Each structure stands twice: as structure tokens, then as C-alpha cells.
């Protein structure tokens, strides 16, 4: 059995101390095998982005993380000092952030920023790095890449900027690409392009991908495996092709149900999930989804469900749904 690219056990991410401490991610474990595309889906506040950032060691100032196990390509990250992580992660783990406008340095050319990784971690010369950058820009379908590579971020359009960020992630190419809502800020046609690029990256270079999104339809299209998160915990893990039919958690079903269908009659109201996610500073008893769940019973409200193996994956629910 090959080594997983990334392994995280029992991750907890919290902010603040003492009385004001809030755990926004709890008990999350995941394991990414080489070549997988894993989607993490959930609404805002579910902790999906923080989980991904924790895995990449990019938590914001003020956030603290603990985990039983945290390895990347076999290297133990938990035991290493920050200064030791550079050689382990540099060039092997790439991140694409949500907002392309603010994630690129306005004072440097796109090419220069893209070149950083290969120049530092692969020792390429400035000229070689520029050539690589042009090639990657072409791969993400940025027109006239030889010109674009010397331009500044503000001269790019939004979609182009996001594609440039992905191109920047492709430079080495990495063993794992973490993409946090890569298409949220883009329009639908560009979305398709960007997802195609990610898929191609995975196919051609065997790059594993963690794709974080609130858009379950998008994830279903591209991922091989889907993790559903709610209120800081993973509530279900299911193979992507079973997502629509054999997902079991009530929340997952509600998410799928809320995706608008183009063929539905126009006067049919959009399906929503009533209520709101719980406050991370409180630790409620029982299943965190219970207040919003149609199938909740008193057991759900008092005892937190553990994972149970299902035929499509695993789920933490006392009343798993039947086939759809």
C-alpha cells in the first residue's frame, strides 16, 4: 500500500483562549492517497476552509491547531519545526486561494510570482522559470502567455487571475493541490475551464487534489471522494459517484436537495435548509445538525453520533437516509 500524500488525524482548530475559545474544527481525520481528487463540501462556517488551511500549515494568526497525526508524503509535520517544513512542503504542496484579486502581489509581475517556487525549490534560473511560467499559463488557457507573463495582476481579468493562480500552483507540479473555492468568484463558463484544468492536472501529473467548495454539484462532477462537513466535523464520507444516490447523512441529502434544477418548474420555490449552523463557541450535546434535521429524534439531540460504515463510505448519523 502506497503512502498517503496527506494524513491528518483528529484535527482540532480553535481560536481564542479560555472562556472565549471557539473550536471551529473538531475531530476531523482525513487521508489523501496519491492521484485522488477529494472534495470537501459544506456551508459557510462548516470549517472546510480551515481544515484545508490547517493541512497546508497556513492557518491565520490567532488560530491554533492540534492533531494526533499530521504527515505529508510520509514526513511527520507535527514533529517538525516551522523552519523544517520548507523542504518538505515547498514545491510539493500548492494552494489556490479563493480570492484571486487579493491573493496575487500587486507589486510584482505575474511571471515573477509564478517563478518563485521553481527558482527556490528546483533551482531553476530566471529565464528557465519564465519559460516554465509561460508554458503553465498556456496550459490554463491564458491567451498570449508570453506577453501576460510580464504583466501585473491588475492587468488581468478576474478569471484570468484565478487561472494564473492555478498555473502558479502547477509550476512544479505538486503532489497535492489544495484548491479553496477556486471558482466561486468566477462566472460559469470560466468555472468549467478551471475545473477542466484541475482535472487535467490530476490526470497527467497524478497530482492529488483537495477541492473545497460549498457547491456540491461542482464537487460531484470532479471529485472521486467527497467529505461532507457540518459545524466543524466531518459528517459523511462517500464516493463521488454514489453521492447522488447512496449518500446517507440527512444533511448531505438536504444539500443535494437544495441544488436548483434547471428542469424544475419555474414557480416551484427553491429548497433551502431552514435554520443556521450552531455557534462555534458553544458545545451542544448530540448531533450538531439535529436542530435543523427533519428526521431528528431525542437520541439525536442528546448523543453525538459516531461513524458507521455504509456501503458507499461512512456516515455519522442515527437515521441514515435510504437510497435516492
Amino acid at each position: 500500500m502506497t503512502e498517503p500524500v496527506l494524513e491528518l488525524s483528529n484535527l482540532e482548530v480553535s481560536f481564542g483562549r479560555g472562556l472565549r475559545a471557539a473550536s471551529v474544527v473538531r475531530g476531523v481525520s482525513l487521508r489523501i492517497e496519491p492521484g485522488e481528487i477529494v472534495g470537501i463540501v459544506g456551508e459557510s462556517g462548516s470549517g472546510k476552509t480551515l481544515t484545508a488551511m490547517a493541512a497546508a500549515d497556513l492557518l491565520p494568526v490567532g488560530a491554533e491547531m492540534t492533531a494526533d497525526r499530521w504527515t505529508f508524503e510520509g514526513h511527520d509535520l507535527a514533529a517538525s519545526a516551522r523552519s523544517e517544513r520548507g523542504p518538505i512542503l515547498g514545491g510539493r504542496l500548492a494552494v489556490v486561494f479563493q480570492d484571486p484579486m487579493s491573493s496575487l502581489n500587486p507589486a510584482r509581475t505575474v511571471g515573477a510570482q509564478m517563478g518563485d517556487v521553481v527558482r527556490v525549490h528546483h533551482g531553476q534560473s530566471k529565464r528557465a522559470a519564465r519559460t516554465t511560467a509561460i508554458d503553465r499559463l498556456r496550459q490554463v488557457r491564458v491567451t498570449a502567455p508570453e506577453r501576460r507573463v510580464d504583466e501585473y495582476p491588475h492587468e488581468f481579468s478576474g478569471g484570468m487571475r484565478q487561472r494564473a493562480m492555478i498555473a502558479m500552483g502547477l509550476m512544479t507540479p505538486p503532489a497535492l493541490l489544495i484548491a479553496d473555492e477556486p471558482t466561486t468568484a468566477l462566472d460559469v463558463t470560466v468555472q468549467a475551464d478551471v475545473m477542466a484544468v484541475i482535472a487535467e492536472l490530476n490526470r497527467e501529473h497524478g497530482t492529488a487534489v483537495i477541492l473545497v467548495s460549498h457547491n456540491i454539484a461542482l464537487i460531484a462532477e470532479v471529485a472521486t471522494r467527497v467529505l461532507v462537513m457540518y459545524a466543524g466535523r466531518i459528517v459523511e464520507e462517500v464516493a463521488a459517484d454514489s453521492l447522488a444516490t447512496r449518500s446517507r447523512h440527512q444533511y448531505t441529502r438536504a444539500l443535494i436537495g437544495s441544488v436548483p434544477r434547471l428542469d424544475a418548474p419555474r414557480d416551484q420555490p427553491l429548497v433551502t435548509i431552514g435554520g443556521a449552523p450552531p455557534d462555534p463557541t458553544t458545545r451542544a450535546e448530540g448531533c450538531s445538525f439535529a436542530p435543523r434535521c427533519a428526521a431528528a429524534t431525542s437520541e439525536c439531540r442528546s448523543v453525538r453520533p459516531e461513524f458507521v460504515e455504509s456501503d458507499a463510505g461512512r456516515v455519522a448519523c442515527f437515521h441514515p437516509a435510504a437510497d435516492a
Partner: protein
Amino acid sequence: MSEWGPFLLRRLGRLIIVCFVLVTLVFVTVRLVPGDPERNSIGGFDGTEQQKEEALARARSDLHLDRALPIQYLETLRSAVTFDFGTSFQTQQPVTTVVGERIGSTLRLALAGTLVIVVVALPLGMVVGALTNGKRRGLDVGFSGVSGFFGSVPPYVMGVILVYLFAYTFDWFPRTPEGGWTDEILPALAVGLGPALLLARVIRVETLNVLGQDYMRTARSKWLSSPRVYLRDVLPNVVAPAITIGGVMFSALIGGAVVVESIFNRNGLGRSLIQAIQLGDYPLVQAIALILGLTVVVVNTLVDIALAAVDPRSMVRS
């Protein structure tokens, strides 16, 4: 990069207009002095009656006082452009000679002062910014206090104290110019330390600002070395506001130089200007005021251009 054309044009236009205003201002000032300008000009002149008459005549013609006012203005413009300013009354030498002798000292001081500012402010501000990012509150307060205090000390007071400390108490530096580059050190520090500390404060704030930006998170995700990140990702973003303030700093430098030259007995334009005003040597006053003023304006324009080169977005903003 098509934005450069219109931008440069606008800056050039502004430069020309300001130069015009400057010449006019100087012109008006000299002529507003009560009494006959030419008589005032030779107030301190010593010599025979005939030499006085000659000097008076020369003054009259240099200031073009025998012509109508509009012609005087045009003539002043012409001499400004051709650098022909007439004769200085203290020394009876052409003004251009006098200025030529002294401009070197002032330029050296301005450049040395700028060097002090850049060499001190950028590293200091960035380092303190990096160190106080979310921690080390003591350093934060300490730096604010010290830099605020010493930054407010005016150049001439700084100069006096530096002379007292280093030229007198420790005798490391000469008190009067001896020729050689060691002369430049204390004056440069006098003129540059205060602004350097103030600029360091701004740079620290900007560094903290930059460190909180999303693109720094992107830089962190690439796992590059700290020095590289600071040099290539932080510095360019910090330099832009620094250059903005830099322009203001330069005019402060020139202003500071004027007084500091007197303290250090340097033979520069600043001290000459003061003497010229006190003695009523108006052709010299006109020339020096114009030159110093023009220098400030030209440097400000160059700063704007440098700013545009570092941060292309600023071209569109103005």
C-alpha cells in the same frame, strides 16, 4: 504600457506651471521690498563713490529696473531659463559663479541626507514591523516613543546636539569643515536622522499592513525563505508609500540644510541665501531661491515618476 504617456505629460505640465509660479513668486518678492531695490542691493557695499555708482548702474540693469514692469518680468523669465542672473552685490561677481561655488556643498548634503534616510528608515521600519507583528507589545510602544521623540527634533537642534556630543565630548569629528568626506557625516546625520525615524514609523505601519494581506498568505504557501519574502514580496509594497513620503522628506532636507549649513559652517547655498537676504543682495537671493525651489519641484516630479515605476497603479489614480 500605454499609461505612461498621458501620465508623463501631466507631470511635465504640472512641473512647468509650478516653475512659472516659482519665478513669479521670487520676482514679486524681490520687488515688494520697500525702498529702491538697487539701493537696497548695494546696502553693504564698500567702495569709492564712483564704484558705488557703477554698482548701482549694474544693479539697475541686472534687475531690469529701468524697463517697464511687464518687461522686467519677461526678462526675469529669460534669465531664469538662460541661467543669467546678473551680479552679486557683496562680491561683485557674477551670480552664477557664486552659485556654482556653493551648490556643490548643498547638493552633497542633500544627497548624504537622503542616503541616511534610506539606509536607516527602510531596514529599521521593516524589521520592527516584522518583529511587532501581533507580538512584542513592549517593542511596539518603545519604538513609537523613541522614534516619535527623536523624529520631532528639528535638524538644527539635532545638529547642535550631535556637535556637542561627537565633536566636543568625544572629539570624533571636526567642528569646522576640514575638507574630505568626514565633514559630511555629522551634517548628514543632523539633517537625515529625524526624517529617517519618522519614515521608519510609516514603513513599520506599512509593513504590518502588507503582512496582513492575502498575497502574503500566498507567499507563505510557497515556503520561500524569509529574507527572500521580505525582499521580493514585502519591500516593493512598502517602498511605494515610502517614496510618497520621500518627496516630502526631500523638501524637508533642503529646508534643514539651510539652517544646518550655518551650524556646521559649510559654504553652501543655504547659508548664502540667508546672508544675501540679510545684506539685501537681491540678484543672489533671486537666483538661490529659484534654484532651491526648482530643485524641490523637480525632485518631487521625479519622485512621482519613481512611484509610478514601482507601483503602476498610482499612475491611474492621479
